[in-house]
């Protein structure tokens, strides 16, 4: 399965890329995070504290146990600070 993975705010800065194309068989967001962490120290730093990471699947907020089947765009970012 081919996914577009987006990073925002300090996750983007730690990974030093705003997006990457990922080929994965991960069944859930959590499994995808494990795979991404293994990519190197930048990714490991970005995902070091999962309490501070939020995820959206195809632009809807989701949880880390959400399935990835059918998903095309996954975004990781810190808690939002709008307004």
């Amino acid at each position: 399965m081919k996914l577009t993975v987006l990073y925002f705010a300090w996750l983007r800065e730690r990974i030093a890329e705003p997006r990457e194309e990922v080929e994965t068989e991960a069944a859930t967001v959590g499994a995808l995070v494990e795979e991404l962490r293994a990519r190197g120290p930048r990714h490991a730093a970005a995902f070091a504290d999962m309490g501070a990471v939020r995820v959206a699947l195809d632009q809807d907020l989701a949880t880390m146990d959400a399935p990835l089947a059918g998903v095309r765009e996954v975004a990781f970012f810190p808690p939002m600070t709008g307004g």
Partner: protein
Amino acid sequence: MAVRVEHAPFDYGREAAAFERAAARAGAGAVVTFCGIVRDRPGGGLDCMEIEHYPGMTERALAGIEAEARHRWALSAALIVHRYGPMAPGETIMMVATAAPHRADAFQAAEFLMDYLKSRAPFWKKETGAGQAQWVAARDEDEAALSRWGDKAAPRPEGDAGKS
């Protein structure tokens, strides 16, 4: 019934006036507006606040929040305008406006929009000043403020309270 995500500054007074006139034509008796302003740090020294957002999801999230407000209250009109990009202290960041026949609905809907905007719309603030840049941490109060509206519109993401 409008949601706008914009880079350029907007004229809050002009927006508020146009909204109020349209609301009056729609039979509203009460209009509430909120606007957010870039605050300098307590001792001064903030050079810039930059707002990053998630193009596409932002518009989608704001439209969803606005639709939920219209579902919950009998609104004559609603408006959300939110900027992104770099801003100086004192600049207007965003506004919401609500109109309803009676004031209680207009006030509640405006507070609802703000509470969801703060914690469920994909915006992130970064402050630069005194040579240092820092992402603004989410405030526990903002996450807590959501609880008064029930969980329906935006489930609590997992993880600890919103400290980054």
